[in-house]
């Protein structure tokens, strides 16, 4: 678990080592990919939960929110069981499509997506529930069919929620630890994201300075993410008017 360092030493400095840059980049790409994976699914699930009463909806709702209450390590373990090379889904993906998820950065993205999924669904669902159905009725009378209506009226009107969900999920994704390390392990350059690198640094003798730098980076990213979400939400709200 040791890694080489080209800068730093015992003195905290704002310059990052290559490995630290790598962890930062990896965190950003893993979080982005996780958001891309969960966005369409979260939209559909939010729509089902908000608009389509079906038998077992309460159960489904609870299931969607499970990652919020389960230990992340357990989620990672479940993913390993399902998507591991010998798991029912993992085996199928590996044999028929040549896609490997466990111990890869794609796997890290999947684990992150699963963990941030409830956050995304929740924000989207709330914004969907606040969309005035009367406007959709108006669109219907003007000849707009369901999908047309969704993309021209409903989606633009719930955009503040979608954006907030995306940004929050992204920011939360940057910090996902337990599920990632369990399902995708801690492989430098492949799955060692910022929190994993931070953890590794803490486990390393004389790693305090590196840990401090990584902590500052994580802190800054988190702040930026939240600030960005606020700015975006405000801009969208303004364009929508009352």
């Amino acid at each position, binding site marked *: 678990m040791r890694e080489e360092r080209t800068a730093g030493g015992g003195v905290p400095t704002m310059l990052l080592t290559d490995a630290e840059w790598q962890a930062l980049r990896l965190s950003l790409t893993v979080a982005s990919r996780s958001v891309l994976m969960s966005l369409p699914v979260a939209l559909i699930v939010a729509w089902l939960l908000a608009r389509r009463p079906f038998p077992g909806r309460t159960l489904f709702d609870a299931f969607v929110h499970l990652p919020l209450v389960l230990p992340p390590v357990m989620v990672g373990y479940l993913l390993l069981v399902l998507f591991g090379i010998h798991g029912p889904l993992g085996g199928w993906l590996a044999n028929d499509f040549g896609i490997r998820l466990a111990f890869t950065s794609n796997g890290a993205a999947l684990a992150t997506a699963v963990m941030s999924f409830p956050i995304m669904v929740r924000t989207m669902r709330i914004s969907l529930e606040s969309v005035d159905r*009367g*406007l959709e009725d108006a669109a219907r*009378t003007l000849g707009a069919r369901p999908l047309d209506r969704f993309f021209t009226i409903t989606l633009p*009107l719930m955009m503040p929620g979608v954006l907030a969900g995306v940004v929050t999920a992204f920011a939360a994704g940057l910090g996902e630890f337990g599920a990632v390390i369990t399902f995708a392990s801690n492989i430098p350059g492949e799955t060692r994201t910022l929190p994993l690198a931070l953890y590794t640094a803490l486990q390393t003798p004389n790693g305090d300075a590196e840990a401090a730098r990584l902590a500052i980076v994580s802190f800054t990213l988190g702040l930026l993410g939240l600030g960005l979400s606020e700015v975006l939400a405000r801009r969208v709200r303004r364009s929508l008017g009352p």
Partner: protein
Amino acid sequence: MIDVRLKKRRGAFAVDVAFRASGSGLVALFGPSGSGKSTIINLIAGLLAPDEGYIRLGETTLYDSGRGIDVPVEERRIGYVFQDSRLFPHLDVRANLRYGAKRAGAADPQAEFAQIVELLGLEALLERRPRGLSGGERQRVALGRALLSRPRVLLLDEPLASLELARREELLPYLERLRDHLSIPILYVSHQFEEVVRLATHVVVLRSGAAVAQGDICAVSLTAELRAMVGSEGLGAVIEGEIEALEPDTGLARLRVGSGRLKIQAEGIALTGLVRVQLLARDLILAVEPPRGLSVRNSLEGTLSSIVADAGRTHLVEVDIGGPRLLAQVTASASAELGLAVGRRVWVLVKTVSLRGHVYPAGQVPGRTPAPPSAVAGPRESSGTAAGARSP
């Protein structure tokens, strides 16, 4: 032609209504709140599913439970203007107007767009967002948006209800224009009888989900069903007359109504066309001899065709003035003193001051061949109070 028969039960409330109106023109659904007006409009739009019945527009059947026809909302081509306008907040006025147009596939969308923008005076609003518009402007945009979707019928659900008085006056002329220029029927929901008097070519009076009276406005204005709804304050016959002359020096217009003449204030009235006036029952004065030496300009001679006593020690008197009928309210004692009885010759006096007419263009004459209303005229048991004329 619009021909509707619909049944719908919602909890304790049930709508069971039938009405039919020919041609284009404006059909007013009039009734107090809770009488089922909006439910009926939503049933016609397809936003609510009827239990049974049919909806026919000319040759097209939108719904028929007997034949299993139920055209989906998005294919009904109904121009629905909601009470709260429901403009899309994320689109500017131009995009709002085009929303229905794009999906309707007009042959020449640009020409149509220009025409509607012109008709409703929307040019200055095109780049603006709905939230920046006044209530009246919103409703005009909503009207334009509905019209540009090439509708078979226009449904207006109390489009003036959310507007303050001044804005209403601003929008009314546009509605009159639509009524007179469109070749499609307009269904207009209102609980304001003044609006109905001003706009309607055909009236359906609703109470508790049922049509209790319908027909042209003049006939409906005499019915007991309507009287029960508007109360003695608003009670009064609506009559229509052709303009015979304008008197520029006095600022008055002379109408021919039945066999008599009626002078009204001529503001905004052209020389041609049909003018509609409501004479409030409580503002009318009855005389049994030709009146002389009075300041009253209007005296209409007629025959007393019906008289009913009512609880408030007043009598409601219907007078036939050679076709049109008027309603006057007199106290029981005056009635006895004058010896009022059916068949008696009477003179009805009206002050000109309070009379203002609403003009109908010659092509669209609602009351010229009045169809008998389904619940027929004539004062029955019930009261009214005073007589007079009204300028909504």
